[in-house]
């Protein structure tokens, strides 16, 4: 019998954790990535990674609290068993990261330092300066390099960097037995056999034009699985982060850690106040999040902070424009925080540098101007889990360890993990929980995948026994598609189509969702699809390192995903987490407080996971019930006061 192999597509935190764990389980891994894995989008993560810890525990925090915060932060849409495991394992994940050398910030005595993050009143976020994602990614990358080069003789992990995943390959029984991929330099298309395939391909921010994500986050890999029959879960849930720096090419994030470390959000009490921020006296500032949420203050969950910022700007208090400014101040100056310059410089260095570099102002001396931007895809490939039926008190209630179903999509043998899946964050992700979900699930799934490949029943045997013609047919299809794209001679530049898509998606399918407008977006998507199919122009016919070709291919994928996101958002007639629905008749009623305009959460009808399936070229929606076996949905207002109107309108 030949050696079994697993294909991991994606070398961000999720893909690397899965790869190294599988390697330890004596499984050979082929690891694919668009870029050297060290340059994956995870490198951008700034703020930190959550876990219950000994200090918080003594203050009354526990894994249960972490679980419940995550569930409530996600407005009760996440299945509870997987989230419970994530919270329970989090402290062990931190220990492992510590052992592989992540340079976490330390206390004077040498213990791991902690900071405050959104949606919690306890310090439970571990961090490495303001470049936590970079540090985690590098440490995992180093472990994978060790498996490549040395450990057990080397070669347990083989990397394919600068390769683009094109599609999964399925055998006669429907199970996934490999992939087709393209070398982005030679443009060679070839098939790879794999006894299981793990998609760890990240989020899809590029669909919205500018987002805080890396420009390689198109979501196309997930879309290619969707097009082959893998279901999407909750595609309509897209996180808009409250604090980003507007930019021509992308919106750069200003991490939540800025607020966790004491940063305060405010607007002038006078509309269109022309004075520089530092000249506005204390009593003429409205720290509106503190006013509205006296308990959580500036660290309310992101969906809430984003809407409050939107609303205060809608009322005309925004800065960066006369009466129509879209930005607010995020203030880290010593005057507002009471914290010394040097202290914040040390704890937030990396993100302060970003602001200074791109805006040209030292944010510790002058309040930053920030605004909300698309940041994270809660939705993604639907994945399964098997419940551990033992009672909670006996360690049950979570997922059954090692069960092959955990993290598996509806296609047997095709798994998903990280931002590419939909499992851990419900309707809104809490800050510093994504790095955790990526690494936790990547590690956790190792034994599950191993058990799957060792017990495949249908078709029996391993992928190496599958008939070669199946792979050849898939390669041929992809080659045909490439030839077609290369010879496209219409007038529509693929980058222009993507820009148009980004505009309509960010205008109509982000913070406020109004069916009337989303229906317009849906028809524009139809039109763009038509234009793509009939009028695409390929400005580069090269068969060598042709980026335009790869991008053009992904534009189609983005159109498919956008359609699923928009359709699911139109269908969901309630507000929940990041999905905030305003009935058509209130479209222009900015005179009514935002909360009163919106539909309410509707558990009776909508406490359901959206499933989007691609059938005959169409997106079909169905629903499944959410696992709420551990905690019952409750009100989610984070103690908002009714004090809507203490602002003096002048």
């Amino acid at each position: 019998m030949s050696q079994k192999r697993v294909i991991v597509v994606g070398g961000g935190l999720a893909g690397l954790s899965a790869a190294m764990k599988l390697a330890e389980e004596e499984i050979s891994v082929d690891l694919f990535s668009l870029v050297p894995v060290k340059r994956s989008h995870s490198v951008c993560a700034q703020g930190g990674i959550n876990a219950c810890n000994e200090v918080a525990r003594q203050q009354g925090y526990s894994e249960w609290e972490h679980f419940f915060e995550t569930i409530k932060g996600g407005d009760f849409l996440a299945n509870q068993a997987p989230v419970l495991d994530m919270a329970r394992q989090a402290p062990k994940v931190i220990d492992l990261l510590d052992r592989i050398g992540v340079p976490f910030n330390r206390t004077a005595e040498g213990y791991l330092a902690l900071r405050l993050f959104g949606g919690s009143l306890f310090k439970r976020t571990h961090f490495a300066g303001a470049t936590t994602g970079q540090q985690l990614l590098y440490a995992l990358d180093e472990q994978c390099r060790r498996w490549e080069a040395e450990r057990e003789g080397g070669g347990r992990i083989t990397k394919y960097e600068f390769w683009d995943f094109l599609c999964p390959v399925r055998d006669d029984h429907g199970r996934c037995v490999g992939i087709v991929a393209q070398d982005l330099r030679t443009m060679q298309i070839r098939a790879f056999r794999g006894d299981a395939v793990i998609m760890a391909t990240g989020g899809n921010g590029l669909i919205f034009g500018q987002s805080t994500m890396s420009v390689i986050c198109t979501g196309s890999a997930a879309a290619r699985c969707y097009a082959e029959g893998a279901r999407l879960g909750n595609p309509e849930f897209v996180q808009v982060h409250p604090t980003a720096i507007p930019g021509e090419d992308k919106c750069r994030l200003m991490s939540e850690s800025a607020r966790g470390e004491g940063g305060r959000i405010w607007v002038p009490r006078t509309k269109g106040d022309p004075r520089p921020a530092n000249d506005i006296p204390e009593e003429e500032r409205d720290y509106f999040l503190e006013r509205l949420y006296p308990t959580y203050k500036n660290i309310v969950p992101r969906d809430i902070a984003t809407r409050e910022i939107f609303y205060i700007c809608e009322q005309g208090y925004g800065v960066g424009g006369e009466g129509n400014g879209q930005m607010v101040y995020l203030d880290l100056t010593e005057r507002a925080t009471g914290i010394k310059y040097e202290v914040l410089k040390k704890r937030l260095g990396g993100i302060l540098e970003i602001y200074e570099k791109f805006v040209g102002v030292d944010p510790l001396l002058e309040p930053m101007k920030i605004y909300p931007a698309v940041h994270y895809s809660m939705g993604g490939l639907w994945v399964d889990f098997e419940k551990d039926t033992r009672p909670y008190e006996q360690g049950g209630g979570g997922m059954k360890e090692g069960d092959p179903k955990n993290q598996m999509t509806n296609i047997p043998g095709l798994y998903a993990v990280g931002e590419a899946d939909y499992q851990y964050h419900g309707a809104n992700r809490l800050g510093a929980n994504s790095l955790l979900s990526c690494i936790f699930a990547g590690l956790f799934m190792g034994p599950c995948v191993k058990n799957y490949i060792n017990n495949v029943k249908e078709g029996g045997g391993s992928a190496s026994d599958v008939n070669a013609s199946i792979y050849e047919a898939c390669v041929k299809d992809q080659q045909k598609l490439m030839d077609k794209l290369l010879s496209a001679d219409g007038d529509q530049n693929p980058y222009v189509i993507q820009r148009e898509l980004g505009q309509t998606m960010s205008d109509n399918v982000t913070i406020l969702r109004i069916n009337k407008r989303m229906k317009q977006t849906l028809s524009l998507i139809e039109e763009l699809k038509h234009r793509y199919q009939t009028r695409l122009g390929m400005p580069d016919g090269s068969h060598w390192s042709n980026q335009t070709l790869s991008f053009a291919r992904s534009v189609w994928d983005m159109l498919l995903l956008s359609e699923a996101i928009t359709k699911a958002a139109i269908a969901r007639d309630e507000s929940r987490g990041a999905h905030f629905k305003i009935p058509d008749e209130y479209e222009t009623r900015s005179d009514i407080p935002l909360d009163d305009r919106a539909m309410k959460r509707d558990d009776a009808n909508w406490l359901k996971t959206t499933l989007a399936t691609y059938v005959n070229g169409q997106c079909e929606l169905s629903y499944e019930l959410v696992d709420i076996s551990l905690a019952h949905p409750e009100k989610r207002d984070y103690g908002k006061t009714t004090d809507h109107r203490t602002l003096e309108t002048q």
Partner: protein
Amino acid sequence: MTTADSTKTPPTSPLPPFPIVLRIKRQDRPDAAPYWQTFSVPYRPNMNVTSVLQQIQSNPVTANGEKTSPVNYDAACLEEVCGSCTMIINGKVQQACSVLIDPLRAKCGNAPPPPIIIEPMSKFPVIRDLIVDRTRMFENLKRIKGWLPIDGYYHRGPGPKVDPQTQDELYDMSRCMTCGCCLEACPQFTKANTFVGAQIFSQVKYFNLHPTGQADADERLEAIMGEGGITDCGNAQNCVKVCPKDIPLLDSIGWSGRAATIHSIKKFFSK
């Protein structure tokens, strides 16, 4: 009232909207001859070099109005943390995403700004246009065993305690994004030789300082002792001037050099 920072704020008076002119050194394939093309892109405020390249992608026409293929370049994070977009801009090796257009123009006052000259890095093989092959840097990380040799991934409790001073020192080095600026600027580093360069000396120090890294410390030193190693460093100090992450490369070079010397003396006496 003037605050310390208001002097730092960029001028708000709009710069004259001259188009942005880029001269780009292009190359179709690794074995093809390079050629230059000029592009002119409409000016918008707050652009960086990457956003100008994006404009060329959506309208790949040269300044003379000739249709051409979009310029190929690497990019991912767009916030100077992934290291992808390293190239030579106006003669200096740097990241395209963090080179802003406005400050370049502000220097020219009301005169039309000179073209921005863009070339691929010269010390690495060109794949196409501005894309180069930096595999050598990653291979060198294997050569020095750039990892901590822990037992395995089952739970074993926390790692060794590290004092905050050491953590500080480690953190400064751990921000190296494998961009290659230090190698591009180094007179000793050429396409033809095997010199590993400042990035690697810094990584050796990084892993050797960590309590767990000490198990392989000697092997790391050995790896930088032969050909292409620390003795080839001419101490020109160009590396540290161009490192975008302000990594204290000279400290690392000095440290690794001393450690290597001590190691070879020890070896000599234990023979």
